[in-house]
């Protein structure tokens, strides 16, 4: 009945609010690293994150580290006030979870993938491996950590149909040295795509190697996040102003290489700059 154009648009069906979930299981993954399992009524993809809310404490972005049916998990490193309070939770306790958010990895970027994870970035890589293997892709996983006790998911990896290469700075498990060493070797097999998530200097090195070898590369980038939904701007990156929560978290090599800020500095919650 409109003579006048009504310009209707489809409203987001989901309310962007935390929902109360119950913790079903807690797994000690490594020194100061735990996974928290809870039921989640949403489909997550590798590279996406959830906003996790502890009332009175805060709300932080956390990568999805697994999802099987309705059971999903995050994997958290105890580093500061939020993560330490999260560690005090027990099975049966509740927390708020919102999301998932962010653009995920492209699972169809080839047939063979090399995944490079460092620190809790491995959370994203193990979930990506799950999803790639489900699509019958060939996967090589490279994990780095300071030492054996910081290595994540060693049991989960063992049960997965892929090659896993461990690197520790002190040689306490797998090879001694950086993941870049292992990656160099893995590149000899000419994989179709490299995916990486971890400390930014590590990702920057991986990106350089991929570009040199002319192999496709996808990176999951982190920035300070408040809203997760593209409004607050705290995750905007120089010089394009793209929002990591919305245009990211996953960038391909070309888009990542254009980010002058990448590997050099980042901003905190007040938008104050800090060098890496």
């Amino acid at each position, binding site marked *: 009945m409109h003579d006048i154009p009504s310009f209707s648009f489809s409203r987001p069906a989901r*309310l962007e609010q935390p929902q109360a979930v119950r913790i079903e299981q807690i797994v000690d993954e490594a020194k100061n690293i735990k996974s928290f399992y809870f039921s989640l009524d949403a489909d997550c993809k590798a590279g996406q994150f959830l906003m996790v*809310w502890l009332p009175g404490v805060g709300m*932080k972005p956390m990568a999805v580290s697994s999802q099987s049916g309705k059971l999903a998990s995050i994997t958290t490193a105890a580093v500061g006030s939020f993560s330490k309070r999260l560690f005090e939770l027990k099975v049966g306790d509740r927390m708020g979870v919102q999301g998932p958010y962010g653009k995920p990895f492209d699972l169809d970027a080839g047939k063979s993938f090399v995944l490079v994870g460092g620190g809790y970035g491995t959370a994203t890589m193990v979930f990506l491996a799950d999803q790639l293997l489900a699509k019958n892709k060939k996967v090589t996983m490279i994990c780095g950590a300071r030492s054996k006790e910081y290595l994540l998911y060693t049991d989960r990896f063992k049960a997965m149909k892929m090659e896993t290469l461990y690197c520790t700075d002190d040689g306490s498990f797998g090879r001694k040295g950086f993941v870049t060493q292992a990656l160099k070797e893995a590149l000899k097999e000419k994989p179709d795509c490299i995916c990486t998530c971890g400390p930014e200097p590590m990702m920057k090195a991986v990106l350089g190697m991929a570009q040199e070898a002319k192999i496709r590369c996808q990176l999951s980038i982190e920035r300070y996040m408040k809203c997760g939904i593209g409004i607050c701007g705290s995750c905007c990156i120089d010089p394009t102003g793209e929002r990591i929560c919305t245009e990211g978290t996953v960038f391909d090599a070309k888009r990542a290489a254009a980010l002058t800020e990448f590997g050099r500095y980042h901003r905190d919650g*007040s938008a104050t700059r800090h060098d890496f």
Partner: protein
Amino acid sequence: MADIRIELLGMKLRNPTILASGIVGSTKASVAFAAANGAGAVTIKSVTRDRRDGFANPTIITFEAGMLNAVGYSNPGAKQAAMEFADLSDIPVPVIGSLTGTKTEDFVYVMQQLKGCPFAAIEMPLSCPHTPGFGTMAGQHSPEATKEITKAVVKETKLPVIVKLSPVIQEIADVAKAAEKAGAAAINMGNTAGPGMIINTGLKKPVLSGTAGGISGPALRPLAVRCVYDIYKAVKIPIIGTGGVMTGNDAIEMLMAGAQAVGIGTAIHYRGIDVFNKVSKEIAQFMDQEGYRSIKEMVGAAHA
């Protein structure tokens, strides 16, 4: 196609959509991103004297009728902001600086710090509903306080000063008149309403860490339109209509109420960062269909 360009405070805008303050906007790159997606002008996030972390997260959530936020003016402080926005030459549209404070002296101080930035205009919210010490929580939205702060800042700069009002006052025309008298070049009508609260019933807690937050988006639009309508009758300076503009039709409602341009914030969540392009296209479509040749013809049309 209809001509949707406008002139506002000496700025030439390719279309009447302006990125509202505090939706992205803490960095030059972030306002450039809105410009790249069609905004006719962009406003930076408000800057305060000192660095502020703002409220702890959660700071922004949605409900079925709009958005709630209690960010609390997080920003790196006037000095760092002055560096961030020192060179705006690569941004293809006018950039509006935004500043705020708890005391008149703070407004003046930030204005002095930002003097070197090539902004096209300066905006001041006197109207945040949820940050202690600022806006309505500090009484800055009264006609008296509006006059005092506006006068002080106008004295400090040659740029046109836009005063951003709160829709919570029913006698909004009085506040707009006070701003006009004190030398304001334009009114931005306006800020978020409320504040409002959402309680998570499972965790039995208000979701926002600031407990209450400003209401924006569709829920706000009729309130903002009414305020624009009331102000249009009371002042001669131009009005920027901000609050819940989602579509071209919403923008035209604002124009017909009396606004010369519209601010857009929350719609970025509903329609994407390119909402500026979308709304501009829809405005032109409406004009073509209804036979308007310029934006001006629509401004205040609902008063006839």
